[in-house]
């Protein structure tokens, strides 16, 4: 009796010690907290979608806690740059392609090459579009991982096309002009035109993607391929420039007041059926549909590749938009941050970005393999256009250059400068900006 009791006692003591040791060890599995900053966290649809993904990530990685930080798009760069310069800033953040090169040049983003190599190196990157890796790769080093890539196309209202007797979207800009004249009319019969064919974005918000697409589809570009000098004196750009102004002033197929139209305004016009076509991409569908549910946007709107200039052989005829993820140079938890980056850009998440937000992925396998994307006509069209798209010049002075071009185009439209003068001024101003560096 005594001996068995002492055995039980010993066992109990052992169990107690084990429990204590275990109890003490548990808190040692510390929790790391990382911050993730994204302007789309502030948007209704995207915000929900991202947060759901983050919740899943936290479930898979119980030792990591993610703090979501929405940041307004207009203040994003100011906030990030001030914080990072001060040694702080979010661990993981998202950027569109415009400021990426500046961030890399300033040393604000971490070199991800070691992580990429550990994840498979070239085979890891092979699934991403080669185009999409361009902005985030410098000197062979990978600084960011692409998340969403789309190309700009021509969004049009099929119902209005049918009413005007137009059977197919225009394939050349010459056809486009003919089509536009048919689409511009008065729906009330009073003689006042209240339906137009098209609009263009001349206000700052959204100007870059849309006007550049037109320039490119004419076979020209803003800068020479080495991004060192202006290419605005090429005959292709001159043709594009004049074409845009003709649409506004001569054909009048664009509603008056175009100089104040921004991306949001263009969507509103399409939603209200005041225009029949606009330059957009997959995101136009949910956006415009939300603006006017009665329009039945998903059924009535279609997207086609941008028209090109007849006979143009340029391999690039549209502009790409891309969102990528980066890790802060100052991050104290780079490993946890990398896990989040990898998670948000893996194939299952890419499918979710389409389901929730109608945004294509930067992964070729998803765009070409995911059933729902393949079934969606708009998505397939845009996906196939990605190979024909190029990014806007990835240089730090880009915002200034853009503004010079925009102001001169506006001046030509308003008539304060002649067209040739405006284009020449734009060309000279851009060169001056590039030389100033």
């Amino acid at each position, binding site marked *: 009796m005594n001996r068995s009791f002492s055995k039980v006692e010993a066992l109990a003591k052992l169990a107690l010690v084990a429990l204590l040791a275990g109890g003490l060890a548990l808190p040692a599995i510390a929790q790391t907290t990382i911050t993730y900053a994204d302007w789309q966290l502030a948007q209704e649809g995207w915000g929900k979608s991202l947060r759901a993904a983050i919740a899943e990530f936290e479930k898979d990685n119980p030792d990591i806690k993610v703090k979501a930080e929405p940041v307004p798009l207009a203040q994003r760069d100011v906030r990030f740059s001030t914080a990072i310069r001060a040694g702080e800033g979010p661990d993981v953040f998202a950027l569109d392609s415009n400021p990426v090169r500046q961030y890399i040049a300033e040393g604000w983003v971490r070199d991800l090459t070691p992580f990429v190599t550990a994840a498979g190196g070239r085979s890891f990157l092979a699934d991403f579009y080669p185009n999409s890796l361009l902005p985030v790769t410098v000197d062979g080093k990978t600084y960011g991982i692409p998340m969403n890539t789309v190309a700009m196309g021509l969004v049009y209202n099929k119902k209005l096309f049918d009413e005007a007797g137009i059977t197919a979207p225009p394939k050349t800009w010459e056809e486009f002009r003919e089509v536009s004249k048919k689409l511009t009319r008065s729906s009330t019969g009073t003689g*006042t035109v209240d339906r137009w064919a098209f609009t263009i974005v001349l206000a700052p918000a959204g100007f870059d993607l849309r006007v550049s697409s037109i320039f490119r589809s004419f076979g020209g570009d803003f800068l020479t391929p080495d991004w060192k000098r202006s290419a605005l004196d090429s005959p292709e750009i001159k043709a594009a420039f004049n074409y845009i102004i003709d649409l506004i002033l001569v054909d009048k197929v664009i509603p*008056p*007041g175009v*100089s104040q139209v921004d991306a949001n305004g263009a969507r509103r016009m399409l939603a209200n059926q005041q225009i029949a076509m606009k330059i957009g991409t997959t995101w136009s569908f949910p956006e415009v549909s939300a603006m006017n549910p009665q329009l039945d946007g998903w059924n009535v709107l279609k997207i086609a590749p941008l028209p090109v200039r007849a006979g143009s052989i340029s391999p690039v005829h549209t502009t790409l938009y891309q969102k990528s993820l980066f890790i802060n140079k100052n991050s104290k938890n780079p490993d946890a941050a990398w896990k989040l980056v990898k998670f948000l850009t893996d194939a299952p998440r890419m499918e979710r970005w389409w389901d929730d937000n109608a945004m294509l992925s930067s992964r070729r396998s998803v765009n070409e393999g995911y059933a729902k994307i393949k079934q969606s006509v708009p998505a397939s069209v845009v996906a196939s256009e990605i190979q024909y798209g190029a990014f806007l010049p990835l240089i730090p002075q880009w915002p200034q250059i853009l503004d010079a071009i925009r102001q001169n185009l506006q001046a030509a439209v*308003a*008539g304060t400068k002649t067209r040739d003068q405006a284009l020449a001024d734009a060309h000279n101003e851009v060169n001056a900006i590039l030389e100033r560096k």
Partner: protein
Amino acid sequence: MPLSATPGGRLPVAAVPRDIGRAMIGERHTAWWFVAPASAAMVLILGFPAIAAVLGSVNLGWGSAKPFGVASYVRLWSDAEFLRTLLNTAIFVISVVSLHFVLGMGVALLLNLEIRLRWLFRVLAILPWTMPDVIGGIIFRFMFDTLYGGINAVALALGWIDQPIDWLGRPGLALFSVIMAEAWRGYPYVMLILLAGLQAIPREQYEASEMDGAGPWQTFIHVTLPNLKMMLIIALVLDSVWECRLFGMIFGMTGGGPGQSTQNLTLLVYKHYFQFFDTAYASSIAVVLAAILMVAAMPYLRIAIRRAE
């Protein structure tokens, strides 16, 4: 200083010199204690930054990398944008103040009459001025909107035009629109000052004029206007100063555009500070603006100081 000369019309009492109180209780320096807090605050929040701005414009003061020099001011006179903006500001102020005078005078004359429900019309008369200026700018931005604005809608409905007018997209029209908007918003200010002046005109003068057989227009020229001279100067000077400094209204309505056609000096300074980060140049423009305002306000300042003593 005799009491009866002080403003507000006090009860006439025996002239008691002010400093009797002081002498009696020996409070020579008490005055300073009273004005010190506000004066110190003024020096800190107004004087110091103002001087810093002036110094900054000649590259003195903190943070200046370059040596002292009037380069900023020299640059002004060859800067086409500055000269254009100066012209814009002049056109804007002259047009707006003129319209304020016409509208203000007219309504003041109306409100000076014996009319029923005068209190109601008085309330309606000052309504535009109660609107914060940037909000006014935004509302007019919408009203003048080419497709969605009310102005084009009314003009189209009345058949005055058959295509919407691009008010805010064409430089000349934009300046016109901004002037119209501010004419609406600011005229009650002038109206109130003129109304106060009108109400102070002694009735006998009008009665005398009537007995002389003068018509309304002649009465206006010979009785009303001369009596209003002082108030007119005050009203127009103050109004000009306000309109030179206008920021929110134009910022909200056009942001200075299209191009720079509605940009005034205030917006130009803001642009150079916060878009181009060119502090020395921005300060120099601001100093020029401040100098213009001070010079323009001289008549009013002299009158006001004299009256207030």
